[in-house]
């Protein structure tokens, strides 16, 4: 049986998903995701060329409201759960390289 997914692909997907998986997890997930994908391919037994994809089970439509100023959470409540903050800002490690270095 051909493997559905290999460790190389699992590493790539982990990078896309922003997960710093351990080597042990990569190995474990390679096997498990392979088995799940193998099962999922059961769907290929069904002929669906003429079937519309259904993303949502109810007829949904755009919902509009008047563009009015309303009360929002405010800075303190919004920042209350911040892992790190600096005044009215969320604080994260430096994103841009220091141009002088």
């Amino acid at each position, binding site marked *: 049986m051909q493997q559905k997914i290999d460790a190389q692909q699992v590493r790539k997907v982990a990078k896309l998903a*922003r997960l710093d998986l351990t080597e042990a997890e990569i190995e474990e997930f390679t096997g498990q995701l392979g088995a799940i994908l193998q099962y999922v391919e*059961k769907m290929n037994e069904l002929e669906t060329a003429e079937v519309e994809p259904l993303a949502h089970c109810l007829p949904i439509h755009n919902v509009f409201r008047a563009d009015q100023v309303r009360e929002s959470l405010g800075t303190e409540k919004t920042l*209350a759960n911040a892992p790190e903050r600096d005044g009215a800002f969320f604080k994260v490690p430096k994103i841009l390289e220091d141009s002088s270095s």
Partner: protein
Amino acid sequence: MPVHDLTAMELRDRIAAGQVSSVEATRAVLDRIDRLDPVVGAYLSILPERALETAKEVDRKIAAGEPVGTLAGVPIAIKDVLCTSFGTTTCGSRILQNFHSPYDATVVRKLLDADAIIVGKTNMDEFAMGSSTENSGLRKTVNPWDTSRVPGGSSGGSTAAMAARMCFAALGSDTGGSIRQPASFCGVVGLKPTYGRVSRYGLVAYGSSLDQIGPIAGTVADAALLLSVIAGHDPADSTSVDEKAAPAGDYLAGLNEPVEGLKIGIASAFNAGAEPAIQKAIGEAVDDYREAGAEIVEVDMPHLDYAIAAYYVIATAEASSNLARYDGVHYGYRSENANDYIEVYTKSREEAFGKEVKRRIMLGTYALSSGYYDAYYLKALKVRNLIRGDFVRAFERCDCLMMPAAPTTAFQIGEKVDDPLKMYLADIYTVAVNLAGIPGISIPCGFDAAGLPIGLQILTPAFSEAKLLRIARMYEARTNWHTRKPVGLE
């Protein structure tokens, strides 16, 4: 009868009549939690001071003759996937272990407006991903009927709390069976409303096109009472159905009127996948309806066998997108080992998410990634349409479908944790309902040889919860399964 054995309706009526105080009922629940929850593990947090204070206020209002809400004084448990502006909202995850929501979910607000007493927040599979509550990152919950077994999941904390009478009713959420399956495992009533019936505002998202909040209760009437409180359009949730299209109602009105000329659809081949004891119990329940005058029609639902495959692609795809928000920046856990901003994301997520959550994020990311989108995600959406078609055709011939809520009764703790696919396959009777968006209920319909509860699942077309509840009540009125209680726990 001790206070904790009253139904939510009975308690509410006695509190309103001044026969029992809300403080007394709340104390009874808190005492039971103190005594039983070290074993059961249903709650992630309890809110004793707040609960007693609110109960005292309800008692004062009643004594003063002031108007009170429809759940006045009734202690209720909330699955910890629902945001509360008090206490923590953890989702059973270490990534949200210390998260304090700045706002209340709409359903929480509605319960509080109805003067309910929120006693605590219940355990769950992390981010509602699981069928046994074993994926909780924070606590282990056991089944009150047999403490070596799982309560089901992901709303296993709410159903275990209900079964052990550590609340009078509870809220859960159901993305692929997370209310109905644990309700069947714990011998209680669990209702998943139609998608759009109840506002999802403040429900931490897992699979946004599938998620729905619903009641967990000891009786059908209590589920109807809770649904009456939480249903209805909410401007804060654009997918909640507007009142003109499908008005919410008082689900208690007419609840005891049997449905005349009831036609029950059975998909025999599909139902045959359950354990013999479950097939037998479902068969006997259907016979009971027949005796009550119902007609049974055989329906063909050829695409239900593909529901698990489609569900696990769609749900994980939506999850991979929804859970991108846990990045260690705005709230939740942040790794102390991050050297740059990318590592804030990758290490925070790696260190604080549990295995099943990572697995589902990986699966969903893969299914949406370039080169695989058509083969997996698009294909699954097409299969979803075929599954919905099965229900549409079936409901042309019958009022409701009946099937098991799960292929087995509660399984042993640890039995399936090492084999995720095996765990997924146990969702065979529940996931199609979420893909089709229709309502479903699980009600107690018997026990297996080991004394474990069995659930009868009943399904009706979209937005017909009133009829669904009436059909469920027809059976409950003729049986006494719902009055049985776990033994040996006390």
